[in-house]
């Protein structure tokens, strides 16, 4: 499904900081479950309630000033 501006901004953030990887095989679209997993990882690493949804707290967190380097977090490292 087409993403709205807020969702697109969030996906760009997740891509830029290493939470989401552009699929090498197949199409350029992300599967919703991949985006949800990346959002969950971001929320967990940010000590936010983990919903996998782009809620207000997650958006605010993504707008906070930060370092330009990627984050190393994924579900495996968080475990």
């Amino acid at each position, binding site marked *: 499904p087409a993403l709205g501006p807020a969702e697109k901004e969030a996906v760009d953030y997740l891509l830029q900081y290493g939470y989401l990887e552009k699929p090498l095989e197949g199409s350029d679209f992300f599967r919703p479950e991949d985006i949800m997993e990346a959002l969950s990882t971001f929320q967990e690493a*940010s000590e936010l309630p983990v919903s996998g949804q782009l809620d207000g707290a997650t958006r605010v967190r993504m707008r906070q000033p930060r*370092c*330009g380097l990627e984050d190393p977090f994924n579900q495996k490292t968080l475990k």
Partner: protein
Amino acid sequence: YLLLGRWRKKHLTFRILNLPSTLPTHTARAAVHQAFQYWSNVAPLTFREVQAGRADIRLSFHGRKSLYCSKNFDGPGRVLAHADIPELGSVHFDEDELWTEGTYRGVNLRIIAAHELGHALGLGHSRYTQALMAPVYAGYRPYFKLHPDDVAGIQALYGKKSPEIEGEEEEEAELPTVPPVPTQPSPMPDPCSGDLDAMMLGPHGKTYAFKGDYVWTVTESGLGPLFRVSALWEGLPGNLDAAVYSPRTQQIYFFKGDKVWCYMNFRMNRGYPKKLNRVGPSLDAALYWPLNQKVFLFKGSGYWQWDELAPTDFSRYPKPIKGLFTGVPDQPSAAMSWRDGRVDFFKGKHYWRLNRQLQVEKGYPRDIAQNWMHCRSQTSDHTPASGDTPASATGTTVDTISSPMDTTLN
């Protein structure tokens, strides 16, 4: 904490190339000096400022675009700064931020500088949101101090600070970690035979071909002379499985059997060779793909994708080569990529060129000897490639040129 690399010395120099306009010079300089001190207080590191010439760590402020940095900044807010990992040493701050000291307004230069120096010293981002190395700026703290996770991270890299180590001037000696390479090399290979152990687009854009105990450079105008592999990379054996250079980290990885060797230029990194644990032994080939900045490792019909700077979940690999690299044979003997994203695979006497969509271009496979090694078909006697060891007779000759490697050997 996450470790991204380390300096092979503990006494480092730094240079402040410019300062922000939002702070008095002495205040900004004091903030940067204090940032270094956070780390030298807990680890046996010393930092000496230099006013001119080359320094290990170089701090500067630049705007949205810079001639000297490929990573743009984004104006006020969002990205504040970035830094390179060891042993590169660049630390850049966004000059559009309101850099401050001693106030809750703006962005505290001391804390951000300390964070970026953490990267420059080898630390990645911490998952503790209160740690200095957390990715998000937590704001000004008047009584700032390092989080235990920051301290544990830096001490994992450089050890704990102890009075005995203070004042030591000498650099760490590099301990040999591998037995000497056997002195009897295999016969000098003939570049015109076509088949290769490995190919690599190395530092400074030089292309290296590996076969048996030898390596040579390949340019558009000819080949460099053949050198023993161990003459260029001390401690490295011949008959390699694969070689790959990562411009992202400036590391060169060599693979043979169940081991990996890691070099920066021609110097082996401490602790190598290491055992290959998470990917299979006896790899076929390796390449760095600039479009996603990942290292790809190939074996049989499968590949692994490896991110050097983040933990990689290898449980999803190997994946089938054919699923990503369309038209490529299994068990390639070598592979390399170009800066524009094109990729070449080598197998036997042929090579396949892939476009940026990773599909084999029309007209491939082509002949390695003719198109890479400057060999031409010949009906008369064969001329050996170089040296006095006869190369195998292939019915081709090779054009050699003065070595582009001479300067690096010097």
